[in-house]
C-alpha cells in the first residue's frame, strides 16, 4: 500500500525512537543498577540476595498468593464469560462497559473499600453479627490480600476470556454435539482448547500484577505481610538501596520472560 518503500520506515521511526529511549534504555538501566554495587563495580550480589530468607520468603508468598488469585479469577471468570458469550451479550457493548466501569473508580479506593467491608468491626461483620453468624477474621491476613487481588484483577481475566469465547463459531459446537459429544466433552475437548489464547492472556494479565503488587498487600495485609513487590518498593523509598531494588526487579523479570515465552509458543502453535 506504500508507493515509496521508505515511507513506512519514516512513519514508524518516531515510535521506534520513543520505544528505544523510554522502554529499552530504562530496562538497560535496571540491568546496570542490578549488576553493580554502590561503587559501580560489577557484582551478582544484588541478584543473589533473593536467597536471603526474608527475600525468598516474600517471593515465595507472592508466588503462592498470585497463583491462588489467578486460579480463583479463572474459576470465577470462565463460567461468566461462557454465559455471556453464549447469550451474545456484548453486541451492545454493555458487558464490556459493566466490567470496565469499576476501573474508573480508582483501584486504591476500591481496595480501601474492601478494607472497610472486611475489618474486624467492619460492615460485613456488623451484618453477620446482627444475623448471629460467626465473624470473619480475615483482614490483615494473606486471605484478605487474595480477596483484593481477585477483586482488582478479575476484569483482566473476564475480558480476554470473553473475547476468545465469543469468537468460537456456534457451528463448531453444534457439530461436536451432533457427533455425540455430551456437554462436558464439548466444553473439555472443544471450547476449552479453542479459548486457549484468551486463557493465556487472561492468566498473564492477572498473574503478573498480582505477583508484583505492593499496594494491595500494604492495604489488605496491614503492612504485616511483605510480598516481593513491597520489598522492592521499600528498597527504593525506604532503605535507599537502588542496586538491591534493581537486582530484585531483575528476578521478577525472569518470571515475565517465562510468561512471554509461553505465550509466544502458544501463538506459534496456533499459527
Amino acid at each position: 500500500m506504500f508507493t515509496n518503500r521508505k515511507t513506512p520506515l519514516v512513519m514508524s521511526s518516531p515510535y521506534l525512537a520513543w520505544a528505544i529511549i523510554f522502554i529499552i534504555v530504562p530496562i538497560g538501566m535496571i540491568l546496570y543498577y542490578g549488576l553493580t554495587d554502590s561503587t559501580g563495580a560489577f557484582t551478582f550480589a544484588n541478584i543473589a540476595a533473593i536467597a536471603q530468607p526474608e527475600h525468598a520468603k516474600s517471593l515465595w508468598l507472592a508466588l503462592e498468593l498470585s497463583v491462588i488469585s489467578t486460579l480463583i479469577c479463572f474459576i470465577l471468570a470462565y463460567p461468566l464469560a461462557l454465559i455471556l458469550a453464549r447469550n451474545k451479550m456484548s453486541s451492545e457493548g454493555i458487558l464490556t462497559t459493566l466490567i470496565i466501569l469499576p476501573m474508573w473508580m480508582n483501584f486504591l479506593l476500591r481496595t480501601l473499600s474492601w478494607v472497610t467491608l472486611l475489618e474486624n468491626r467492619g460492615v460485613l461483620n456488623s451484618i453477620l453479627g446482627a444475623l448471629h453468624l460467626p465473624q470473619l477474621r480475615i483482614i490483615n491476613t494473606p486471605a484478605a490480600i487474595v480477596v483484593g487481588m481477585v477483586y482488582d484483577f478479575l476484569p483482566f481475566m473476564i475480558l480476554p476470556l470473553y473475547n476468545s469465547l465469543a469468537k468460537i463459531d456456534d457451528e463448531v459446537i453444534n457439530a461436536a454435539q451432533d457427533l455425540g459429544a455430551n456437554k462436558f466433552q464439548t466444553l473439555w475437548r472443544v471450547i476449552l482448547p479453542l479459548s486457549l489464547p484468551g486463557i493465556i492472556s487472561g492468566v498473564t494479565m492477572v498473574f503478573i500484577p498480582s505477583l508484583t503488587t505492593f499496594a494491595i498487600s500494604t492495604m489488605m495485609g496491614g503492612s504485616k505481610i511483605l510480598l516481593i513487590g513491597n520489598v522492592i518498593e521499600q528498597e527504593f523509598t525506604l532503605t535507599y538501596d537502588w542496586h538491591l531494588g534493581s537486582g530484585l526487579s531483575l528476578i521478577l523479570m525472569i518470571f515475565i520472560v517465562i510468561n512471554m515465552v509461553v505465550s509466544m509458543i502458544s501463538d506459534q502453535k496456533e499459527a
Partner: protein
Amino acid sequence: MKNMKPLEKIYFWIILIFMYLPIVTLIVLSFNQSKSRAHWGGFTFNWYIRLFSDSAILNALANTLIIALISTLAATIIGTVTCVALVGLNKRTRAVIMGITNIPMINADIVTGISLMLLFRVLNFQNGFLTVLIAHITFNIPYVMLSVMPRMKTISPSVYEAALDLGAKPWYAFRRTVLPDLMPAIFSGALMAFTMSLDDFIITYFTKGSGFDTLSTKIYNEIKRGIQPEIYALSAIIFTLVLVLIFASNRMRSVQRKDRELTEKQIKFRNIRNTVVVSAAGLGIIYLALLFGGVFTKNSNQVYVYNYGEYIDPEVIRLFQEETGIEVVYDEYETNEIMFTKIASDPSSYDVVCPADYTVSRMISLDMVEPLDYDQLPNTKEHIGKRYFEAMEAFDPGNQYAVPYFWGTVGILYNTTMVDDEVNSWDILWNPKYKGEILMQDSVRDAFMIPMIRNGFSINTVDPAEVEIAAQDLIDQAPLVQAYVVDQVRDKMIGNEAALGVIYSGEALYCQWENEDLEYVVPDEGSLVWFDSWVITKNARNKENALKWIDFLSRPEIALMNFEFITYSVPNETAREMIEDEELRNSEIAFPGEDILDRCYSEEYLGEAGEKLYGEAWKRVKSAN
C-alpha cells in the same frame, strides 16, 4: 440477558454484586457524617460541598484528567501511525517492533515505573508533570497498537489503491478508505488507554516529582492516615457521571440504529455535532486544569515544603501565602525514612523539611542541610523556649540547623472497655490475651525502641547481638499484632478496631477527644522523647522563602493555631501561655512533667552501618508472618 437460564442469571448477578459492592460502599461513605470509615454518623451532603472548595483534590483531579487526556491522544496518534506503517514493513522488523511493544504490557508496573525513574534521575529530568506524562504515553501506546494492529491486518489495500489510481491524494485516500474501517479499533484502543491512565498508580508513584499529585498518588498518601471523605464524594460523582454517559451513548446508538435511512446531510450534521461535543469536553477539561492545576502555572516565588502527613493547620498555609505572596508547594510523607530517601535521591526537590531528631543528625552528618541565619528568624529567637534548644544540642550541636516545631513522647493508647489489666509496661504488647488487638508503629526506629527499652538496652545501640535480641522480640510479637500502621492508629483506635496501640502523644490527645474510653500511658520502663524540627536542605532553590516559612511558623499565634489543630506539644512558650483551655494547657499528655521526661530518651543517628543493621532486622520482622 433475557434468554439466560435462571442459574446463569444468578451467577451473573453474584459476580456483579461482588464487583459493585465496594463501589456502593464508597458511595454510602460519601454521605457519612463521621470522618471515620468505621461507623455511621448520620447522613450529610457536607463532603460534596467541601469538595468544591478543596483545591488540593481538585488539583489532583485536574492533573489526572489532563495526563489521561494528553497521553491518550498522543498514544493514539503515535500508535495508529505506527500500525499503518508496520503493514509496509517486512515480517521480521514487524515482529521485532511488536515484541518491543509487548514489553510495557507484560512487564510488571513496578519494573516499568522503576526503570523510568532511574532514567529520569540519571538524565536529571525532574519535571513532575512531564515525567508522568511521558510514562503514561509509554504504557498507553501498546494498548492502542494491540487494538489497532489486528484490524489493520484485515484491511485490504485494494480500495485504497483504487482511490489512488482514480487520482486521490494519499492522505485523502487514506482518510476516506482506510481510516473509517480502523475507527472502531482506534476508539476502543484509546478508551482502554484512557482507562489505564486514570487507574494507574504504581508507575505514576515512581515517576512523579515534587509538588505533583494525581488522584492515585494523593489517595495512596491519604490511605495511610485516614482518607478525607471528600475523595469518596468525588469518586461518587465520577462514577455517576460515567454511568449516565454510558447509558446515554447506548440509547443514542439504539436510536441511531432505528433510523438507518438518514440523509447524507443528517449524517454530516451528526458528525459535526459529535465533534463539537467531544472538543467541548476536551476544552472543558483543559479549562479545569488551567483553573486548578499546577501544570501550566510556573510561579517563581515559591517554597517547596515537605512535612509529615496532617502536621499543620491548612489555614496556616493559606495565611502564609496571603501575607507573603509566596506560593507554597506542599507535600507530605509518612516516615523519616521516606523523606530522607527522597531528599537523598533528589536533593533539590524540597526547600524545607521537617525531620525528627535522629534524621536531623543523619542529614547533618551527610552534609544535606544548610546552616540557618538567625538574623532572619526573629520570632524563633524570641518565642521558642531556650530549654528546647538546649535539649536539641544532642543532635544539632550549636543549634546551627534545626528549629523545633513540635515534640512529644511515645506511649500506649488503650481502650478501657477492652483492656482490664493495668497498663504500665510495654510487656502488655506481648500478652497473648490481646492477640489481634495490638497496633504497632510501622517505623523502624520507633518500633525497635520498644524491645530495646524492654530489654534494658540503649535505644541507640548498634550492637548486633542486642539488635538481634530486639528483632527476635518483635518477631515473637508479630502474631499478636493486628497491623503495623503510622497515622492510621488514630482512626483504628477511635473506631474501636483495636484494644492497644503504640502512639505519639499528640495523636493520643486527639483520640481521647473523639473517644472517651481511651487512655494514654508512658510505660514505667521508659520511652522515647522526640523533637520534630524544620531544616533547610542544602542548596535549596528558595532559601530566603524557606527562612520566612520557618519564622512564620514560630509566631505565637500561628504556633497556637497549629497546636490546636494537631495537639502535639508545642515548644513555643508564648503560644503555650496563650492556650485558653486550662485543662489543655496543663495536660500531662501535651506537656509531660519531669517525672515522665526523666525516663524518656531521644533517638540518635546510628551511622550508615547502623541504619542498615536496623533496616535488615526490620525486614525480617515484617516478613515473619
